[in-house]
């Protein structure tokens, strides 16, 4: 019994890995086709990208881009596991980043650097959690579908942060609308000559933490029940509404951390009109990771690779950065399609312990409007 259980888990992981690799291959193949049709040499373009990445500088730049994506993906993953579609990552990143920039500007020069990181990342976490909490409360209190509210809150956040940094929170000593620039010594320390920074350790710790949460903790189990069978969760007297709000709070906090990461490392300031749009990439990342916390690490490298490609390919191969949005979309679509066959396979292989037919999108069903 135990043996077969272990084997089942191993095969499931292998199949998941194969599915993810297949999705990447399909996406790159379709991408290559589009490059050929539009008169590019896909192999040359992909080769140029791989050449860059096989050097330490290039690879470290992939990691730099993977860090905030991994944090944003953690936010998405936690919610997705609980059957909640937090499409508001972008907005939560923005309000978190602004809070971080403002707080860092206030305490810079008065406190040692590590304290500055903790205080300003803390501000980002609290503000972003509260922002996401709005959608959580609206869902729990009024049954409002979080897909709609989180998308609307993205646009509100974009205008709100832009307004705050141009108006009320403007630093009059600076020419452009932005929060005070954090001096280099006060930012997260980098590793060697690269731009890879302490945020990497934070991201890894969070991924490991999520893994432990879903494997060991009661809370993780409760989230899975809500996500997979909300009716059963209510029957089991789980405080579903409280858990939904809690999930949104933590999810928002993680997204806020992604924003703080950028401010405290590579950017050093929050500028108006800055919008990294990690949300969609984070969704592609989570499904590439097969919704497994530890899968976030390799998947973040893939998405970091794409983000790096979008930054350098316009120069080295004259391919517009939008091409990489297309690739992300193709990966996500492939995963969605192949995922259906994968789920049927899993159900059949788990036939000894039958799972009830699960609604594809329980969260949509549970809400009004």
């Amino acid at each position, binding site marked *: 019994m135990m043996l077969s259980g272990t084997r089942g888990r191993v095969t499931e992981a292998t199949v998941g890995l194969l599915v993810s690799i297949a999705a990447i291959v399909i996406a790159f193949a379709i991408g290559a086709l589009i490059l050929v049709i539009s*008169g590019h040499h896909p192999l040359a373009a992909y080769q140029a990208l791989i050449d860059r990445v096989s050097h330490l500088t290039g690879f470290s730049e992939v990691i730099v881009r993977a860090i905030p994506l991994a944090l944003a993906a953690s936010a998405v993953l936690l919610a997705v596991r609980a059957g909640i579609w937090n499409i508001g990552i972008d907005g939560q990143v923005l309000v978190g980043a602004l809070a971080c920039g403002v707080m860092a500007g206030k305490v810079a020069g008065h406190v040692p650097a590590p304290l500055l990181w903790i205080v300003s990342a803390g501000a980002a976490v609290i503000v972003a959690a509260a922002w996401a909490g709005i959608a959580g409360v609206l869902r729990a209190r009024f049954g409002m579908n979080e897909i709609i*509210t989180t998308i609307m809150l993205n646009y509100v956040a974009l205008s709100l942060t832009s307004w705050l940094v141009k108006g009320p929170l403007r630093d009059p000593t600076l020419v452009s609308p932005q929060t005070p620039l954090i001096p280099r010594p006060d930012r997260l320390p980098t590793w060697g000559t690269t731009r890879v920074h302490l945020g990497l350790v934070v991201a890894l710790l969070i991924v490991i933490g999520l893994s432990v949460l879903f494997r060991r903790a009661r809370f993780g189990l409760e989230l899975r029940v809500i996500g997979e069978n909300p009716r059963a969760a209510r029957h089991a007297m789980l405080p579903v509404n409280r858990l939904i709000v809690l999930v949104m709070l933590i999810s928002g906090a993680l997204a806020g951390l992604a924003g703080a990461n950028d401010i405290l490392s590579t950017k050093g300031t929050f500028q108006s009109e800055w919008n990294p749009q990690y949300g969609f990439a984070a969704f592609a990342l989570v499904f590439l990771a097969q919704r497994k916390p530890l899968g976030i690490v390799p998947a973040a490298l893939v998405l970091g690779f794409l983000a790096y490609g979008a930054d350098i390919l316009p120069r080295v191969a004259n391919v517009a950065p*939008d091409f990489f*949005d297309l690739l992300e*979309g193709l990966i*996500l*679509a492939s995963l969605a*399609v192949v995922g*259906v066959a994968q789920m049927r396979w899993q159900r059949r292989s788990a036939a000894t312990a039958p799972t009830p037919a699960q609604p*594809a999108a329980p969260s949509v069903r549970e809400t009004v409007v």
Partner: protein
Amino acid sequence: MSIEALLTALLASTIISSVALTIASLGEAIGESAGLLNLGIEGMMLISGFVGFWAALESNNLWLGFLASIVCGAVAGLIFGGLVVLAQADQVIVGLAMTLAGGGLSGYLFREAYGSNQPLLQGDLGRPLRHLGGGIPVIGPAIIGQKWIVFVTWALVPLVWWLLRRTRFGLEIRAAGERPFAADVAGVDVTRVRLLAAVINGAFSGLAGAALALAELGFFRPGITVGTGFIAIAIAMVGRWDPLRIAIAALLFGLLRSAGTWMQITGVNIRPEFLQMLPYLGVIVAIVILARGTRLPAALGLSYRRGIDRT
């Protein structure tokens, strides 16, 4: 500027700026009524907008541009339908994927075709009723003198209502969205109905993209929809899948959006970024108020496999 001129400007910009949103929302309402939650409208609008713009520019014929947009949107809708109805992939994921892929592809193709140039369409299809409103203040220039796409949009409102409420196909759509199992038992081909609804939804997204790029603005640029496709999903829900309510909700949204620019012209001292938040907050408030006593189509977001009742 006189009060009359200001009112005319506000009304005219409200109407024209809500056209693409109205069309996209009507299309989404048809899809959602059939149980399809399409988060890919934004991407569909972008790729159709680009294709229509490119066709119109190359052929120097705006009508051809519109046709190309609608066909492109219908094909995108067919892809969405194929993936979620036939392959039964998750609607939310496929929708997000289509938004990413459509946005990415349109941006890539635009830069391939025009680099950093910004070509503009010459002329437009005119204002068919302009001469009728000659002497009437405000309403004459702001409503009667509108571009023809405005009247097409307004004609679509009763048309969609008739389709959903008065035809057998509309009944089948709603049955497929509420109780696909029961509809199947009653002899409705749920797969066919949902596929068709997806194609219509896509064609509306295509027309919406064309309305924006070819009629309202006269140019295309990557990311030009700035979220209209997502707002359409919210507007369809605020309007509770009723075409007239949707049209009114879209107009109110357009009014809130235009009001910002309008207040600036009149010299009210508020930063534009602050005013830009208002329409989105308005949608959230509207849904909070409307949420009581309404519910989503019961099978929204669920794929249907013959013989399995999941609602």
